[in-house]
């Protein structure tokens, strides 16, 4: 399978080179939003397009990292992380809709000729409460689902299929207009956030920086976990759950913790994603998206911290370029990519780089 965390950690921390690269990338990420503030036409000015695109990819990268925590480290492949992502997004979206609608109801409700807000919209006009929802909605769902799933030792493919069923159910639910989340259209046409014009360069830059910060934070968390005994227990859990139990560890608690943590990270990523791309709707919950997330991780290299980030970056980068360069054929490239990676790069790009490093 893949390397134990300490080893990977060492391998990542070890070579100065990779550290240097990391630092440069970080600097670039911080510089990007600042450059975007330059006056239009300036030679160094970064277009809003680039900024939002990179911002979007960063959000995906966080999802990939979160997914890797449960898959790469605890060996639980979730095909339902899109759900948590979307829930976080919807929570933020609710706030943005309220902000846009002012005192009146959000547009889609008036069109359903509803007279007042459903109960679960209460308080969403307050940013603080929206933030709580961003954490609570995915967190609680993950807690309940995980509690039952792990209690009855569901793992492997069964777990994957169940998570898939979960997100599928979520999608159907949110498609319904009566559910009260704008149905198929979801939320769009946002105006402002905390009073700041959502389309203004400044807001964009800040949102971008926040995304970078969240990414760093989740990296740090992942890193700490990887280093801690907790991380080693997870690895043990992944490889020999029975042994671990006979050592006196209760796997359920460990699984649940990392599972919920991962879900919450996804939620936060979603919350940052929505204001940057300007729309959230049920298709974010479609099983396809979640599978793609798994592909990012696999491509980058599971069980490592940098891998998922690379994977998310690569796949999405290629996607948004292919879709313009050769609209009719990009699916071939994408498909071929998945196959080649699983066949020839079982440890993903990171594994490859390491091999290069060792040679």
């Amino acid at each position, binding site marked *: 399978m893949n390397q134990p965390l300490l080893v990977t950690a060492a391998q990542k921390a070890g070579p100065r080179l990779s550290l240097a690269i990391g630092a440069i990338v970080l600097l670039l990420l911080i510089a990007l939003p600042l450059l975007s503030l330059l006056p239009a036409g300036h030679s160094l000015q970064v277009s809003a397009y680039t900024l939002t695109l990179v911002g979007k990819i960063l959000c995906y990268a966080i999802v990939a990292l979160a997914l890797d925590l449960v898959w790469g480290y605890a060996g639980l492949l979730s095909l339902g992380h899109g759900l948590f992502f979307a829930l976080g997004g919807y929570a933020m979206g609710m706030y943005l809709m309220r902000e846009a609608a002012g005192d009146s109801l959000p547009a889609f409700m008036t069109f359903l000729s509803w007279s007042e807000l459903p109960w679960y919209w209460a308080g969403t006009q307050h940013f603080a409460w929206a933030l709580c929802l961003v954490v609570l909605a995915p967190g609680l769902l993950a807690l309940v689902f995980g509690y039952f799933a792990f209690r009855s030792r569901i793992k492997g493919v069964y777990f994957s299929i169940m998570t898939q069923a979960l997100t599928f159910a979520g999608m159907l639910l949110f498609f319904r207009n009566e559910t009260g989340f704008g149905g198929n259209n979801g939320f769009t046409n946002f105006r402002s956030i905390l009073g700041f014009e959502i389309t203004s360069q400044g807001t964009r830059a800040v949102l971008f920086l926040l995304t970078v910060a969240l990414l760093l934070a989740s990296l740090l968390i992942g890193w700490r976990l990887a280093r801690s005994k907790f991380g080693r227990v997870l690895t043990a859990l992944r490889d020999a759950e029975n042994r671990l139990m006979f050592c006196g560890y209760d796997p359920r608690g460990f699984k649940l913790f990392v599972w919920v943590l991962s879900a919450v990270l996804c939620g936060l990523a979603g919350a940052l994603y929505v204001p940057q791309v300007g729309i959230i709707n049920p298709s974010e919950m479609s099983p396809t998206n979640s*599978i793609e997330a798994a*592909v990012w991780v696999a491509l980058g290299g599971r069980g490592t911290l940098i891998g998922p980030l690379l994977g998310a970056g690569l796949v999405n980068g290629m996607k948004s370029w292919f879709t313009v360069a050769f609209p009719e054929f990009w699916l071939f490239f994408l498909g071929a990519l998945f196959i080649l990676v699983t*066949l020839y790069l079982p440890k993903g790009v990171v594994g490859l780089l390491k091999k290069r490093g060792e040679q």
Partner: protein
Amino acid sequence: MNLWEPALPAIGPNEHHKDPAMLKALLALLLLLPLAAQAGDADFFIAAKPNEQASLLQAWAAQPDPARLALLSAMQQGRLGADDTRKLRLNNRLRGLLDNALASHQLLSDDATLRLAAARQLQKSAQPAQVAFLDRRFAGEPDAAVHAALGLALANLQLADSNPAVRLAAVRLLGETGDPMARTRLETLLDPAVETDAGVRTAAETSLAQVKRKLLIGELLGQAFSGLSLGSILLLAALGLAITFGLLGVINMAHGEMLMLGAYTTYVVQVLVQRYAPGALEFYPLLALPAAFAVSAGVGMLLERTVIRHLYGRPLETLLATWGISLILIQAIRLIFGAQNVEVANPGWLSGGLQVLPNLVLPYSRIVIIGFALCVVLLTWLLLNRTRLGLNVRAVTQNRNMAACCGVPTGRVDMLAFGLGSGIAGLGGVALSQIGNVGPDLGQSYIIDSFLVVVLGGVGQLAGSLWAAFGLGIANKLLEPQIGAVLGKILILALIILFIQKRPQGLFALKGRVID
């Protein structure tokens, strides 16, 4: 382009303005009718304005003339006569009246079955103007069945009869039918304003109760059937997966595309047959079966040899690889056949349905598919449990190394097993093409359900898949009328999740000591 109709807002009202004029025309026609040479009818009709055409048809219906039969049946085919090339433009209203007129003409025929069909038609469409004629036929009808059918057709009209005794008889008679129409007809009679005679009203009530009971039976049977039908479709969709995933442990995300390939093969076969053997078109689905099996199985085996072979024991990697494969297959089909759906027509013996009760029609296609699904399951079971190949497959899937040691050619067995699974999916595709649309995304819509069926049934358990499929199908159909399609599906998913967490190995779990 026909611009005969005045501007939009005028439609409703000026019908009524027209009425008197129409009536005059009608009277004139009625006088002319006996004299008018039959050949004349066609020209007469084509010349008339739509509204006059309508009254003409009504008139014909009220006073059938055997000689006109040919013309009417030709008109139903959209022509005016065997050798007449003039274009006949009908709209729904005219078609309805035409059917009615034709039916009353057919009552004159000597063929009892034809008369029966006609009588059935008249039960739906007969107009008050036809009472006199129907009365005559009813009196003179020799055949019992036709007689009864005519009786009902007549009864529908006699509800408006002036004589309470007649109405009473009619109401009693209608009580015998399970015809949904009868229900509404009787319901109107409950209102004293409509039906003055108390005796008739009470009779109507009792009859209504009878009718309602009959209808309820029909509905329940209908629900059960549609549940079975949905189940059989899920089963066909999932069966291949039960082998590739259930036995080989490959999370085959490209399974849906195997269905899709099967469906497209059906399309190609259809086109080829159309082109080279139009005579055999009726039976193209039968030809499509082996073809679809071959194509899907071939592709499956190719994939197994090239990609999946390298991934045994790494199920989650197979997930990613097969996902990539499915993307490629979909886009390939899209580029070859286009993104739009392709037309797969039901042959005659698969279209239409079997009228079991007045309110229960069982489509032939669905009946056939249920049977087909069960056959496929049976064959698969025999193949796996009664043949050498099946033995090998089971051996390999249970302990690859051991099987290899016993000299089982694991490589070939894997390939064949995967081919078998894919081939069965192809067969499923043929069936799906008969009830749904055939497009590049066909597979995507079935993949999740398929996995749920297999997991719910218990991995590696054919019987499990069988029960799971029908269980899901019926549950779905029982829920849908109550809480709607969407909530129904959501509820089902929730139930499955709960169920699996109680029985992680599905319905049919293997017991025994777990080896560490």
